[in-house]
């Protein structure tokens, strides 16, 4: 009897061993089939918040040409990988693995204890690569002068230039400030008078550490830094170009912060929000009487009646969406090709064009509150119009160009 039982148990173990062996092939194919079914059932996502881009969705274009030349297969491959099941989760897992393995830079960013994310140092840009942009600015400035329009170029401090620690000690020095200095020197040599805002800001508001002015996990300045920049810009504008009124003081604005909303910094999004020990939060410094909501008529696009919008349609759109976490763009503003602000309570009758990048977004309304009419243009989304013709047609009094000091994109220097 005992022998029979032992034989039975031994045989049972052999059966179990054989079944266990099959765990691997069955497991692998089950995973593949499961992913396939989930992929079919799951609706396509149109965009990726983390990658900040639109995702390829399924196309029903099965034309013979596309199949024969292989483009259909390539499109399907892009579609499949863009819509892969739990894509963000896989990406996040990979980034976590990279961070845990002690890699000093993940996606070109160094995440240090304390929540600061620092970008990889940039190299020196040869002056010959800068010259086309300088020449474009020179020509632009001369054209505006011919039209009797004032022009000013404002170099805004980029976080990546001024927050350079901590990075591993073996890294070479970042050349962002050196590049900016070279670029501004070349501009001066070619008749364009740039204004390096950081120098003015530190004169007006001496600080021990520029970190107070920048987000830890994003490439922008925070509201504190942006507001100081606004005050410095207006003070400097008044000195150089005429009275645009005093900037709003700290006492004239009330502070409100979204303490219950996690901030999705642009660099943290590259790391799939894995940096959690930061203290970033979205804050607003706005006047109450009148508030910016009441002060402006806003046009999105050309100044036509049908283009009039409410401020809430383009400002802080992420608040009403109530989604977590909130990005810089959704907290302040996205970049738009063309916006017009007609001021009901201006401090000067000047009509100003501001050509800008995203650094101006938190203080667009602060800036616009001084001028009778402010047009804000982002050349990356401006369309195919000739900027010069646009300026002549609108007959501005002053054109301000405000870019962060690391912005050397080619498209923002197409100025004809």
């Amino acid at each position, binding site marked *: 009897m005992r022998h029979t039982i032992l034989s039975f148990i031994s045989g049972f173990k052999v059966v179990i061993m054989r079944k266990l062996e099959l*765990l691997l092939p069955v497991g692998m194919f089950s995973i593949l089939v499961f992913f396939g079914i989930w992929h079919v059932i799951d609706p396509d996502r149109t965009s990726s918040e983390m990658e900040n881009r639109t995702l390829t969705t399924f196309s029903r274009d099965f034309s013979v040409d596309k199949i024969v030349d292989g483009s259909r297969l390539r499109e399907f491959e892009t579609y499949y990988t863009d819509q892969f099941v739990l894509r963000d989760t896989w990406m996040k897992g990979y980034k976590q693995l990279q961070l845990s393995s002690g890699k*000093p830079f993940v996606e070109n960013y160094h995440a240090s204890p304390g929540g600061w994310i620092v970008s990889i140092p940039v190299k020196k840009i040869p002056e010959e690569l800068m010259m086309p942009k300088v020449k474009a600015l020179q020509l632009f400035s001369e054209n505006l002068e011919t039209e009797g329009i004032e022009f000013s170029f404002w170099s805004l401090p980029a976080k990546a230039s001024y927050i350079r620690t901590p990075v591993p000690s073996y890294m070479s020095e970042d050349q962002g400030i050196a590049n900016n200095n070279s670029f501004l020197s070349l501009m001066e040599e070619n008749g364009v008078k740039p204004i390096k805002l950081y120098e003015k800001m530190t004169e007006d508001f001496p600080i021990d550490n520029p970190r107070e002015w920048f987000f830890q996990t994003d490439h922008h300045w925070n509201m504190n830094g942006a507001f100081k920049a606004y005050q410095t810009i207006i003070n400097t504008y008044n000195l150089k170009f005429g009275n645009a009124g005093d900037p709003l003081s700290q006492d004239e604005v009330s502070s409100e912060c979204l303490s219950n909303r996690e901030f999705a910094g642009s660099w943290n999004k590259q790391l799939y929000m894995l940096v959690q020990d930061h203290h970033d939060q979205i804050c607003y410094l706005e006047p109450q009487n009148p508030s910016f909501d009441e002060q402006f008529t806003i046009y999105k696009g050309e100044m036509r009646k049908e283009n009039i919008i409410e401020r809430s349609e383009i400002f802080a759109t992420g608040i009403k969406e109530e989604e977590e976490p909130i990005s810089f763009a959704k907290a302040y503003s996205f970049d738009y090709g063309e916006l017009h602000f007609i001021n009901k309570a201006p401090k000067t009758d000047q009509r100003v064009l501001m050509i800008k990048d995203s650094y101006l977004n938190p203080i667009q309304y602060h800036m616009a509150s001084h001028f009778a009419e402010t047009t804000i243009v982002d050349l990356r989304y401006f369309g195919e119009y000739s900027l010069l013709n646009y300026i002549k047609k609108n007959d501005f009094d002053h054109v301000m160009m405000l870019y962060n000091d690391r912005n050397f994109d080619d498209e923002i220097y197409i100025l004809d």
Partner: protein
Amino acid sequence: MNYLFGLAVDFSKKRGSKKAWVFIAVIANLGILGFYKYADFFIDNLNALMNWNITIAQVPLPIGISFYTFQAMSYVIDVYRKDANVQRNFINLSLYISLFPQLIAGPIVRYQTVADQINKRFVNSTYLVDGTKRFIQGLSKKVLIANPMGEVADSVFRMSGGDLTTANAWIGILAYTLQIYFDFSGYSDMAIGLGKLFGFDFEENFRYPYASQSISEFWRRWHISLGNWFRDYVYFPLGGNRGDTWTIYRNLLIVWTLTGFWHGASWTFMAWGLYYGIIISLEKFFLLNILKRLWRPLRHIYVLLIVMIGWVFFRANDFAYAIDYIQTLFTISTYNIYNEKTFLYLFNNWYVFIIAIILAMPTYPLLKNKIQTFLEDQRKELWMARDLLSSLTYLMFFILITMYLVNATYNPFIYFRF
């Protein structure tokens, strides 16, 4: 085409006719390969030599053509040599030539290896398990090791001027040495594993070549199917080891130059092949006797140095770059020994380098044997635990591979709209 050639060779009664059909088959196959892969090379060189200006439309290169052309030729030649029976079933022959696991990256499967398996094969749980394991091993080698090493190698080989320091050059060639091994052997493992899932037993294509103690041994362990193909279909017909010394060396140099040329349509590949031909000839001549007397680690260092220098020619786009790179390796033409990129490469990838170096040696089979020996006298429960742990480990690797593959499609647009 090769189906008909096989039939023609088999049907021919006279030896002369059989030979003629084989000759035509080889010319036809090499003609197709030559047109798709080597036409541009020949025309460019003809134009340079004769100062002509011949142009042809861009010829797309069919993927894997070098592999399946050699495979198809081997079938016709084996039928001629009576090493294999002719395959009268067109579908079965098509299956052999176009079998997807090894179609585009080998191993080059000889018809005689799988002739019986085409009609008679079976798949049991052992095949399923072993095939799956082998497939995941191959995919792991490719995705977890070869791809990261490839990124390092590509980054270094893109460098120019002061950035290419001696240390970076060594890191780059080490990364490439590991990339090409794990990439190629990974594909072979996947092919063997997938073949097993369908009941096919393909032969091994790599046997830890970086553990070799001579270059001759290296080529008996690296891309074994290609080496065997050239040995059986080029070296032996040329005379092989028969004949006087100079004939043997001539045969070796021809075979190795052709081997290099098979890899790519450029002079650098031919030079790479000739480089090995010369070294193998030297080993045959006297070097092997010297090597046998050397301390074993020195033999390994000798092989690795020769192979890594060879990879510089293999990877470089032209001779000038290859020479420059080798000079940098030995600090002949460099400004700096190291720079910040050196630290970045090391700190970012140290664990991949270490794992790759360990796995490039026969550590895994050693470990497997040790565990097997230990378990032989143990209870069945331990066997079960081993199998369960093994399956879970492979599944974990599969999940890890998926994570790496999904991340490879990461394509952020940081500044869009803000």
